[in-house]
């Protein structure tokens, strides 16, 4: 990429780059040193503030890892349900009946312009008020994540089906398959394969979003880190930092896997992760749009 912007450097250019390198290294080190110095000066590196997180005797590691288990449980449950909801909504958007299309579109577009947190608060406090007293933080979180991500996944599914092009469904009807047969036998097997990287990327986003369960008191990783922080306020920053590192590892692995698969598919099919509909690709909590747009931008270069 930078090869596009800089040519083969001459001796003077190389000298300049070397100088800029040195300045950049000094600058970055100075920044890091400043932060470390301040943290040191305020006593945040004291071993006693950290050792409880790795000491099995304190029960803290077990407590946090069990919290991670609850995070994963909520994420997977919501993901499975959201996939079903998204699939139905996508079929609705592709349906031949106009009212059905309209309802599906209102769901997809309306639900994507409201913050997820409002859904979560509504699903917990609002549904309890409406008489559903049995709503636990877990079910409220799953309900909110499902309705919200269903709308996002619907767009991914729709884009996956549309990315196949007309030829496939035309060929299917030419050999006498009806709508459902062509969906089941021709369109979906191909579309689903293409959608897998996007779905994985969405799972990473969804895992991030489970942390919002904190606000309604769901006992996931972040809530548990918060509880440890309340219990010993002197290392609340350390508690959140440890939780952050655990989240980072899980989410990073998921998104790496998604982009790996995408690269492999692009090599195989000449097409990458499918892109959600034009102007609608806000795969929210800031999920994958940058990559999506990158792919869209790259496409003309491939076909040209």
């Amino acid at each position: 990429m930078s090869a596009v912007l800089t040519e083969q450097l001459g001796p003077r250019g190389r000298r300049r780059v070397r100088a800029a390198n040195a300045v950049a290294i000094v600058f970055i080190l100075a920044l890091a040193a400043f932060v470390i110095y301040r943290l040191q000066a305020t006593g945040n590196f004291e071993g006693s503030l950290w050792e409880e997180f790795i000491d099995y005797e304190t029960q803290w590691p077990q407590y946090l890892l069990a919290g991670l288990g609850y995070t994963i449980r909520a994420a997977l449950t919501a993901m499975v349900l959201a996939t079903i909801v998204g699939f139905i909504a996508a079929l609705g958007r592709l349906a031949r009946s106009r009212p059905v299309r309209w309802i599906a579109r209102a769901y997809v577009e309306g639900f994507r312009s409201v913050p997820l947190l409002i859904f979560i608060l509504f699903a917990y406090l609002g549904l309890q008020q409406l008489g559903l007293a049995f709503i636990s933080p877990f079910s409220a979180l799953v309900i909110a994540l499902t309705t919200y991500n269903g709308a996002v996944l619907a767009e991914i599914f729709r884009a996956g089906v549309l990315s196949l092009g007309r030829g496939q469904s035309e060929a299917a009807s030419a050999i006498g398959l009806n709508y459902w047969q062509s969906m089941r036998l021709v369109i979906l097997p191909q579309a689903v394969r293409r959608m897998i990287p996007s779905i994985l990327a969405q799972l990473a986003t969804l895992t991030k979003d489970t942390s919002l369960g904190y606000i309604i008191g769901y006992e996931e990783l972040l809530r548990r880190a918060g509880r440890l922080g309340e219990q010993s306020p002197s290392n609340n920053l350390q508690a959140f930092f440890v939780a952050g590192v655990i989240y980072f590892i899980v989410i990073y692995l998921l998104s790496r896997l998604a982009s790996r698969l995408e690269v492999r598919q692009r090599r195989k099919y000449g097409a990458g992760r499918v892109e959600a509909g034009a102007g609608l690709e806000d795969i929210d909590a800031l999920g994958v749009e940058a990559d999506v747009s990158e792919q869209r931008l790259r496409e003309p270069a491939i076909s040209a």
Partner: protein
Amino acid sequence: MVGLLAEHADVFWSGFKVTTRLALYSFIIALVIGVIIASFRVSPIPPLQRFAAGYVATFRNSPLLVLFFIFYFGFTKLGIQFNEFLTAVIVLSAYTGAYLGEAVRSGINAIDVGQAEAARAVGLGFVQLLSLIIIPQALRTVVAPISNLFIANAKNTAIAVSISVRELTFVARQVGSSEADYVSAFLGAALLYMVSLLFAGAIFGWIEKRVAIRR
């Protein structure tokens, strides 16, 4: 629901104003961060490339709420006194800046090599080449992703409720609790978010029509 909203219209309005300010300030700073990060990533200077890549990976793979807490308690621990609003602006712009950095970078990659070659031919140095030729075109190429990020950032302002910024979600929860009517309060807030974000989307659509370059 209408009654409750009318009765507390001034409270909702003040919350809405805080949300709007939060969304606008953080997005403007995020744009600056995004352009800087993207410039670092395409610069010929490896330390800056790595710094930018690390920044993007860190912020994109961490939950926003975790970042809120780390910054909030971190600032306190470092003895820096910021109010909640300022902390929220910093966290949101750092987070959205990472995404914008990726969006701008993809815009830069989409620009024809000829542009850079022509700029060098007329004697522009790297910084001039980037700021005068490449970045303006890159931004115009990625108007659609930028507009999506604006909306996502505006929605993420709701998370500032976690550090007690008195924005729309905070206000809705407060009214809901004092009136024992969460349903109306949250529906009202949802409606406000939806209307204003659909409106923002329309404005971006208009901007896109005027300035966007299609490739």
